[in-house]
């Protein structure tokens, strides 16, 4: 029996279910551009205000020194059907906010790591993170004008990716290209899911 995605609530209202895909990559790699290319609305921005214990603050004699930091995430929405909504979340660029990443990655069906070949090393932290966490991901090389074109096998070697991780070229501004990236990611996530089930 297929339980479907929706659940009849006490009031008789059927609420859809939400799922999410993460869009990661270095600063300026085109995360928000990709979100905007496929989202049904312009990308929205949400902020978390974090309080962290102050480190290296001058002597406050037992007063717990705290300062706040704001972490911003851009995101978009794609209504798949009446009972399924897909959210795309750009991950915050600052590597030290791993706990925000943990919240975002929880339950995500997969992640797109956007790579800019002019600054390939910028996507290392995201790749390490998703590998470590076991989140299905692929690498989409965003083709910026003026950037030297590399072959996909060169990018794969430079990033030291496992052979099963898909690598493809994309243009994050183009809806069709962004769609293709997301579809390939979900197909990859299905493969990984099936392989895990088979174990």
């Amino acid at each position: 029996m297929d339980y479907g995605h929706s659940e009849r609530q006490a009031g008789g209202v059927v609420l859809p279910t939400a799922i999410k895909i993460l869009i990661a990559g270095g600063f300026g790699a085109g995360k928000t551009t990709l979100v905007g290319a496929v989202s049904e609305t312009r990308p929205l921005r949400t902020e978390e205000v974090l309080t962290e214990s102050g480190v290296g603050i001058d002597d406050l004699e037992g007063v717990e020194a705290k300062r706040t930091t704001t972490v911003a995430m851009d995101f978009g929405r794609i209504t798949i059907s009446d009972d399924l909504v897909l959210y795309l979340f750009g991950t915050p660029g600052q590597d030290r906010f791993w706990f925000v990443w943990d919240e975002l990655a929880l339950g995500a069906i997969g992640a797109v790591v956007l790579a800019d070949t002019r600054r390939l090393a910028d996507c290392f932290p995201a790749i390490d993170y998703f590998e470590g966490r076991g989140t299905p991901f692929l690498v989409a090389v965003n083709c910026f004008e003026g950037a030297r074109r590399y072959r996909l096998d060169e990018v794969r070697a430079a990033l030291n990716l496992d052979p099963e991780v898909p690598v493809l070229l994309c243009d994050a501004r183009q809806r069709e290209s962004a769609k293709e990236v997301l579809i390939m990611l979900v197909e990859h996530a299905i493969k990984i899911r099936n392989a895990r089930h088979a174990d």
Partner: protein
Amino acid sequence: MAAQGESADHQWMDDHAGPVVRPYAVTGGRGRPVTGTFDLISLVTATRDDVPPKAGLGPEHLTIVGLCQRVQSVAEIAAHLDLPVGAVRVLLGDLVARDLVQIREPHITLGPPEHSIFEAVINGLRAL
């Protein structure tokens, strides 16, 4: 007179002034909701068209009920209210405690998505 009052408001507030109220003032300084956890993609819908006058709620609560006449995620509510997600979680807790909104938790809490959901996503993306 009403029109004059309105124009006076516009005169004194513009985008450059920044938020007039510090984010957690809208929660009365509370940092945690009275109930619920509220994932960023938990979906929220109002259970009624408006709020009873004696509910003891602030204008932001009313704005959320208004927004959630159409299903919205916690992240969308925070973006529309221009408030940090943490503050919105507190406000949502108040609304849940009064049965003014319903929450649908995402699949996160229910384990990995079923195969049918992956298929639906692929078909939905192809249809865009």
